[in-house]
């Protein structure tokens, strides 16, 4: 008993997924990484809208448009790493959360009005994501393979 405990602890220390908490098919860490990258992805819309409000090629336009490009580039870097650790269908089941983030940015940054339908829709989207993402799935063969590769 003691032996297995220390094994688990050392596996955790090494950051390997086998004993880490899992959300569906991924480790908690990669699940968080997926969601941080999706938040980053949704923020591109904010800078895009901020740029759109400025006169074309003004300093503020250039700053905001550069941020759109920077955020998109960072997302592209992150996305490729995230995809290494989960199936595309899993990643895309989570992606509609960007619609909800868009709503959050719209309200907090642009003071846009929110309708009851939007809130109800968001709640249903979240429910769908939670159902689609949950469920005990065995880590895939490729997921195990990548632990050996990396």
């Amino acid at each position, binding site marked *: 008993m003691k032996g297995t405990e220390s094994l688990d602890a050392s596996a955790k220390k090494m950051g390997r997924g086998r004993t880490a908490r899992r959300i569906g098919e991924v480790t908690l860490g990669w699940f968080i990484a997926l969601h941080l990258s999706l938040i980053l992805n949704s923020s591109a819309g904010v800078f895009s809208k901020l740029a759109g409000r400025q006169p074309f090629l003004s300093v503020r336009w250039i700053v905001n448009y550069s941020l759109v490009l920077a955020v998109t580039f960072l997302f592209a870097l992150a996305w490729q790493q995230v995809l290494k650790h989960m199936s595309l269908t899993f990643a895309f089941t989570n992606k509609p959360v960007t619609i909800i983030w868009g709503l959050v940015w719209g309200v907090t940054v642009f003071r846009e009005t929110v309708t009851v339908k939007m809130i109800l*829709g968001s709640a249903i989207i979240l429910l769908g994501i939670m159902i689609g993402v949950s469920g005990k799935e065995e880590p895939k063969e490729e997921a195990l393979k990548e632990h050996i590769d990396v």
Partner: protein
Amino acid sequence: MFEGLGKYLAVWIVSVFISSIAQVMLKLEANKAHTSRLREYLNPCVISAYGIFFLSTFLTMYALKYVPLTYSPIIEPLSYIFVPVIGVLVLKEKVSRRRILGMGIMMLGIVVFSL
């Protein structure tokens, strides 16, 4: 008039469709082992995928010249159908019934959101 609108809607849908193919290309490459981190990005498949994303922004812009932006909540979420379908066909990913149910509820939510 409607025929014209239909044509530009089709361009938009093609744009969403080729972006979905590009997503699958990214995943195809992510499934491979690479000799270096740089190679994970600088390879023909990933570069072509981003080329397709770039092309699709132009197709969407072209379509938006004639199609009202209000169609956006109907057209853009098509990727949530296209990507898993192409993913299952090309990548042979296994999708549980539970996930299909979740995706269905999610689509319903998108419909309610954009009503």
